[in-house]
């Protein structure tokens, strides 16, 4: 897989959805009723009036499509969107709150650590039980609403690694005679290390980083990590699950597979989500739209995001959720990146 085809693979997904018509044929408006699943968007009250949304972007193109179709369905609804990098918007929200001049009704971020920071600094009111109850019990939080999940995974090259020989514990990975790829400056990797710190403690995490360092190649982002693994630069790449799935979608013959550890940071299930900063019926109804069958199905299908509520089909290429064992981690605590940075620097990884 060369650089060009990586770029192509990355753009294939959004490019298909970007075709007019195609986006609505399979876009979030296409209704697929699933028995016992989340409600359809048609059962929700129409949105009216103005709402200010701070949108912390990542897989932004797809979120944009969702917001467009919500606008189209609700002509009396005026969505004022402030787009920016998640961290910058989180810092803005903290500043606004410190001065008592909140502007945003809702913050939608791809990054649980940004949400954690905002929740801690702004202290939004608790969500009502009905909203929280939409989610599977293990993903319920009091003050923010997860929208979709992403797994930490081991991307492996089947030409050099036998899946059955891989350990199912991230902590015993250093014992294997393998070469690794990682992106230490990347937020998702830092969240993974933070989760490891929370689960195993700083000392064990430091030792883990130390023992892998000599055998690991650093990349700028996790796309490059996965690409490096497929090219044989490493045997195992540490990356979020969707990079592998998107690469495989663009080029199904890429030598790349997904492996999961069990019950540890290696298979952390991180989440994107929303914080309602100014509670109102409108804000609540808007967030309800994101939890509908249509939007959730669209996120799983097009962005390979993991549904966190019952009854939405799993993204293609991901093993059945019941077979995976993500660790129990309070995602809000992933905002505590500071000690992680220190650890990464002490071990010379960053």
């Amino acid at each position: 897989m060369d650089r060009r085809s990586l770029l192509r693979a990355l753009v294939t997904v959004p490019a298909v959805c970007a075709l007019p018509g195609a986006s609505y044929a399979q876009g979030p408006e296409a209704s697929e009723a699933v028995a016992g699943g989340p409600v359809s968007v048609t059962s929700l009250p129409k949105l009216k009036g103005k709402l200010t949304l701070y949108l912390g972007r990542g897989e932004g193109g797809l979120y944009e499509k969702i917001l467009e179709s919500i606008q189209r369905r609700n002509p009396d609804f005026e969505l004022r969107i402030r787009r920016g990098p998640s961290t910058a918007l989180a810092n803005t929200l903290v500043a606004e709150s410190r001065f008592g001049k909140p502007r945003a009704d809702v913050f939608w971020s791809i990054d649980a650590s940004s949400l954690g920071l905002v929740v801690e600094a702004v202290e939004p009111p608790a969500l009502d039980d009905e909203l929280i109850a939409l989610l599977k019990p293990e993903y319920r939080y009091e003050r923010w609403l997860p929208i979709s999940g992403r797994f930490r995974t081991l991307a492996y090259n089947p030409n050099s690694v036998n899946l059955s020989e891989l350990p199912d514990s991230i902590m015993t990975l250093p014992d294997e005679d393998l070469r690794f790829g990682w992106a230490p400056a990347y937020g998702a990797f830092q969240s993974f290390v933070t989760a490891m710190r929370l689960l195993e403690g700083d000392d064990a995490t430091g030792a883990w980083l130390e023992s892998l360092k000599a055998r690991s190649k650093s990349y700028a982002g996790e796309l490059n990590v996965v690409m490096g693994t497929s090219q044989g630069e490493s045997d195992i790449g540490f990356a979020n699950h969707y990079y592998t799935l998107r690469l495989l979608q663009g080029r199904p013959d890429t030598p790349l597979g997904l492996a999961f550890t069990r019950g540890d940071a290696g298979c952390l299930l991180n989440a994107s989500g929303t914080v309602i900063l100014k509670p109102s019926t409108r804000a609540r109804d808007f967030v309800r739209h994101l939890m509908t069958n249509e939007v959730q199905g669209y996120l799983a299908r097009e962005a390979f995001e993991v549904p966190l509520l019952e009854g939405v089909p799993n993204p293609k290429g991901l093993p059945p959720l019941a077979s995976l064992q993500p660790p129990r981690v309070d995602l809000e605590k992933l905002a505590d990146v500071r000690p992680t940075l220190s650890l990464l620097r002490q071990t010379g990884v960053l």
Partner: protein
Amino acid sequence: MTRPSFTAAGSLIVALLVLSPIFVLFLLGWGAELDATADVTRLLINTVGLALATVVGSVLIGVPLAIATAHCRLPFRGIWLAVLVAPLAIPSYIGAFTYFAAFGQGGLLAEAIGEPLFNIEGPLGTALVMTLYTYPLVLLTTRASLRQLDGRMVEAARCLGASLSETLWRVVIPRVRSGIAAGALLAALYSMSDFATPAILGFDTFTRVIYVEYNAFGLDRAALLSLHLLGIIAVVLLLESRVSVDRESGHRAFEMELNTVSRSLLQILMSLVLLASIGLPAWVFGAWLLDEGATGVSLSLIWNTTYPALLAAAVTVVAALPVAMYATRGGAGRWLERISTLGYGVPGIVMGTALLYVGLRLDWFYQTVALLVLGHVLRFLPLAVGPIRNAFGRTDKNLVAAARGLGASPWEAFQRVSLPLLVPAAISGGALVFLEVMRELPLTLLLRPTGLETLTTELWQVFEAGYFGRAAIPGLLLIAISSIGVVLMMRGERQQVSGGAS
């Protein structure tokens, strides 16, 4: 107007405004603890090294191009100038990204020629790309100085038997030192505060730690690190010795007639620079465009990009006038001018956050175009101060004295004598600000009114989402608008010249 009290007061107010976000940085960074393990020494060496390499590169390209576009008879000289300055409108992350995508094994360029290619990355790659997008700063400031030169000196040198190159080296260049220095300083400051280019091309500079800290919610440490960076910048400003400005009474323009060979060589050289700075990104955009197809760009995007940039350019020039005038008096004026330069060295994302805190104190100011314009003014002030100060320093004080002696009030003397002499420099400074504001991203993202999308924020969004092809149209539009800006600047200059002759 030329009374020191007046310009001093204006200069002081501007300096205080520049210091206000820096003061916020002190408040934000107060009590932050830096990680001793952050390898600050190495980053310092890298940062300063990158700045030096960028200065050398941009002077080597910018100065010859300035001489060529100011004094050489060339076909389509105005168009050459317009496109040679256009790289200023290309956001550096776009430039860096296209280089990343084009070179290397399996890059677009390697695929096109069918041979594996080297990567453009690391210290050399970063310095190269940085040079390609900062040389116009040197080109414009040097050119503004060149146009103030008295052509009779060149004629005298030639009559006394100096060759053309000897004349350029010994007569022309020493007299535009301050213009070159001003541009080089801006290039150095830009290279030290930009984080996108080093980040994409894999080179560790000071801005990278700032960015990592910012993204890890260490706003306090990002602020403190920015203050460290400001410390380095202050040292650079100190090192910038007071280049004496020669005053010349005559302004006869001089033109160089090149023979066919050197003219062709010059045009080949200019084409190469253009190919590297605009051609390659345009070609990469084209390839993506073919892959994906384009989507339209709304007119409102163009308007939203242009009018804040025009406002910022105008306000910056007005703010720069007292600073530049007071600076030519030396002493306190020079210090206030150096202070006004500091904003250019604060990384945009940190400056934006600091101004956010200023804006939040004044509710009516927060998330308005006014705050956005203020942010741009504080950041890009030195782009206008430099050229105006140089031009002002070179105008003959006797002219003002004569006007006063003939009974003109200070204001009238300023209006009828000083100001017309400053117009070319003010226009070129304003154009620089306009171009920089159009490509600026982090400050715009943080300070704009909610819902105000510009060509640059559009570029960022489509890039972020991976729709590279869709970046082509806004990217080309940015270049087109900037070229129009440069052409207008040229017309202003010409009017000035003909107006002065009448």
